[in-house]
């Protein structure tokens, strides 16, 4: 075949190299593979040149309607989707900087002398995560918020030597499902799972029912941690301090999981309200939503738990000449050193997405982060007021929310309303009973719609959603 653009070898190159290697043909390099293991037929995948490839991918891309436009809203829907991924405006500079080859075509910084860029950036990332979540140590990132939550539960089990986990209040169904998968080694059957995993529901205000939690903790022992989502799945801001005290009184850790870390621009960070471990999903502040991945899991904890952390850590040190530099450190927790005794099997982190998060947080900065949160809050309160005033609509929970909230829609069928509005280019929100939320989602609350509002929405956008919901829901 002709030489391909990614394969530099000409026929002459191959002939010369085979001479050096001492083989008559390329095929002879594979002659030691036994016949029974050989592929039975050639691969059947058609090749495309760049023009044909982009035409093909462009056609696939055109078969979807984006929720977020590339530059302006150009063709994208008016989207109020959140439920685990709340997209924010990502400044152009973030992606421009990410596209520097030195960032995206480098490997894990195992050789610090030629990886100081990545190492210093991760060190800055760890500092920002520590600041946002209000806990002193943070790792170099996890896969996403859901798997970070599962790793936090496993960590709590290691720290306490206990094995039960209590979910307090409304936690994202995909986080719960992920944790079940991770716990399946110790709780394989439904009965075992029911023993290991307990749930405490929400009160009338939409917050975790603290009295029920207290009762539950008094009646079961061996609880490693209480997991609470902050703000919770319905957007309601939890009283983490109160829940933390209840957990600590029984010797359990308090783990917070956050799908929207912008909340900590206006609400108290988990570390300030007694959380021992806090995790969050950062994708909405790092890159476009990209159908949900790659995301970036933020993971922070109390300083004394550092040796039980999963994942990579970057630490500051000096070089031979005493100059400040950075290295991967405390690797004796990790799989490539500890093998079967590692704190986690995790190897790859989400380096580039963590970098995007770091660049965006640098741009937003101390003032911008708070300002973004205040914009989200004010616009959300505005829309809540508009929807609450619509006949047949109601806000089911009295507890305060940040930038996402649940609303009961007139007519009782949120899924239908969402589909109807999608036809006119409005993604009105995520129905709590939406099949796409997966197998742990609530199938009962058919009338509940989760609506997410950010700085991206203008007052006119909010008015339009309210008007269209009023028209379509019946």
């Amino acid at each position, binding site marked *: 075949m002709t030489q391909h653009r990614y394969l530099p070898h000409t026929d002459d190159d191959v002939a010369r190299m085979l001479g050096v290697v001492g083989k008559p043909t390329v095929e002879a390099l594979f002659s030691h593979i036994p016949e029974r293991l050989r592929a039975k037929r050639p691969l059947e995948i058609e090749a495309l040149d760049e023009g044909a490839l982009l035409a093909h991918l462009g056609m696939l891309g055109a078969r979807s309607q984006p929720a977020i436009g590339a530059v302006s809203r150009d063709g994208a829907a008016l989207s109020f989707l959140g439920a685990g991924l709340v997209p924010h405006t990502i400044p152009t500079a973030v992606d421009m900087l990410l596209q520097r080859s030195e960032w995206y075509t480098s490997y894990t910084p195992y050789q610090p002398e030629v990886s100081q860029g990545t190492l210093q950036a991760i060190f800055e990332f760890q500092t920002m995560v520590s600041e946002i979540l209000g806990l002193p140590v943070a790792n170099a990132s996890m896969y996403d918020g859901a798997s970070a939550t599962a790793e936090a539960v496993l960590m709590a089990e290691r720290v306490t030597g206990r094995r039960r986990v209590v979910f307090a209040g409304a936690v994202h169904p995909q986080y719960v499902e992920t944790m079940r998968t991770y716990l399946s080694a110790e709780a394989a059957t439904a009965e075992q799972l029911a023993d290991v995993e307990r749930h405490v529901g929400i009160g009338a205000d939409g917050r975790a029912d603290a009295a029920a939690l207290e009762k539950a903790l008094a009646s079961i022992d061996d609880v490693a941690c209480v997991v609470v989502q902050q703000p919770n799945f319905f957007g309601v801001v939890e009283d983490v301090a109160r829940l933390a005290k209840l957990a600590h009184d029984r010797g359990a850790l308090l783990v917070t999981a956050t799908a929207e870390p912008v909340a900590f621009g206006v609400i108290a960070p988990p570390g300030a309200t007694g959380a021992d471990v806090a995790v969050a999903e950062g994708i909405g502040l790092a890159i476009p939503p990209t159908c949900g991945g790659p995301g970036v899991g933020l993971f922070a904890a109390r300083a004394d738990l550092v040796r039980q952390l999963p994942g990579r850590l970057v630490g500051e*040190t000096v070089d031979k000449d005493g100059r400040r530099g950075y290295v991967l450190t405390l690797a004796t927790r990790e799989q490539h050193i500890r093998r079967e005794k590692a704190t986690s099997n995790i190897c790859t982190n989400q380096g580039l997405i963590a970098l995007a998060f770091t*660049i965006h947080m640098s741009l937003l900065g101390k003032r911008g982060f708070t300002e973004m949160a205040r914009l989200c809050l004010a616009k959300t309160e505005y829309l809540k007021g508009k929807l609450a005033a619509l006949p047949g609509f109601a806000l089911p929970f009295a507890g305060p929310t940040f930038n996402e909230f649940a609303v009961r829609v007139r007519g009782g069928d949120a899924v239908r309303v969402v589909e109807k509005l999608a036809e006119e280019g409005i993604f009105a929100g995520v129905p709590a009973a939406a099949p796409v939320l997966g197998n742990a989602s609530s199938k009962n609350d058919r009338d509940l719609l989760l609506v997410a509002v950010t700085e991206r929405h203008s007052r006119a956008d909010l008015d339009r959603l309210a008007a269209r919901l009023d028209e379509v829901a019946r």
Partner: protein
Amino acid sequence: MSDRTTKTGTPIETRHLLHSSRPIFEQGAPGRSGASLPPLDVPSVDPAALFGDGARATAAALPEVSEVEVTRHFTRLSRWNYAIDLGLYPLGSCTMKYNPKVNERAARLPGFAGLHPLQPPSTMQGALELMWRLEKCLCELGGFKRVTLQPAAGAHGELAGVMMIRAYHAHRGDGAKRTKILIPDSAHGTNPATCTANGFQVLTLKTGADGLLSPPAVKEAIAAHPGEIAGIMITNPSTLGVFEEHLGEIADLVHEAGGLVYMDGANFNALLGKVRPGEAGVDVMHINLHKTFTTPHGGGGPGSGAVGVGAALEPFLPTPTVERDDSGHYRLEFNRPTTIGRLRSFYGNFGMFVRAYAYIREMGGAGLTKVTEMAVLNANYIRARLVEHYPLAYDKPSMHEVVFTDKRLKKETGVQTLDVAKRLMDFGYHPPTIYFPLPAVTGGAGALMIEPTETEPPETLDAFCDAMIAIADEAHKDPDVAKNAPHQTALRRLDETRAARTPKLRWTRE
């Protein structure tokens, strides 16, 4: 290095400027920001009034810098990184091949990047179709019945694969007894860590003197634990860069004993078009899209760890799967009664799916076969050129990577693997993987594991081999040069002991 031997009349060439950049927290000024936010167009809300004690008391101490400063900072930092786009990155087992530019463009198309995972499936048909098509391609390449794209990285794929093995045995009522998994000592550290995370006990198999796993060793381990073997995790080609020639017999033994075969597909780049593991006795394998299929490593992620399975494990795949109806409509299937569940939120690292699919479609079947051929040719070329200077850890035929030892060099000069690695930086290369795999580093020997990949032209390989030879020669004349290397990097050797002894894991004001 500076070139001061230029012709008369031309300016002296210099190294260009390499700026350092202090931590971003030490730059800027109070009150400064690089944010561009819209004005408030609705009534303002006071957080304290709404949240009371639950309001944030002090703002997160994020940087206070303008966009110009941010841009300079991250541009300057980037230049302190080595990268594939700068040169050869011969990390064994990491498959640092060229990351095509067109893939980056494709992944940024609004119809991919702009999708929210929870928008109605009817509005994201193109994305579902891409996932469905990528799955079909990976099934074709690996000889598998189905592939899940959900795992976020290789180790995450391992977790999924081993969970499916456990679910398989549990489903057959055999779960309580089958508690052990066989793993050769040459395996990546993630393999044993994955098994422990799944509640399995690891039985380590010693590789033979030839670097291969032998059927008698497997037979013996099975006989010693009758009825207790859940399966085997085997990397092929192994981390020693050699093809596990007895995979067929070993798979037969494990299957006869009621176990399943997990193949670590980290080294799949050596097998495209040559071996389809699903047809060769492998029940489950993860495929690192960020190795074989060119999605960028990004300084340590995101990866993407698709997992292929045969008929035995198909019922246990994570949910959701992507299905195509007869009408050509794509949907997400959540109803799989024996699923292991989900491993993360949403559907996986979708942005990586787009890149991997673009690469697979650009190369095509014949192109991918040539990828493997050139990868193996390149590794064998390096082997042939260096074998006189660095003894091989194992003498078996090499596949896509080759493992050398420092035995001779260390004995003759005192220069060891770490020194060679650091000295390579002065010649403009990222070092190979060092002190791995474990069987190659017994008895105090160091190992250099070199994987050039297929995207390197022979001139680059020659220059690299010349550097390796020059380092060995230099070690005999003046070993201190290597021992004190690197000399040309922005920072010299870093004190890793100090970093671990008194960990400083975040910036603080001095």
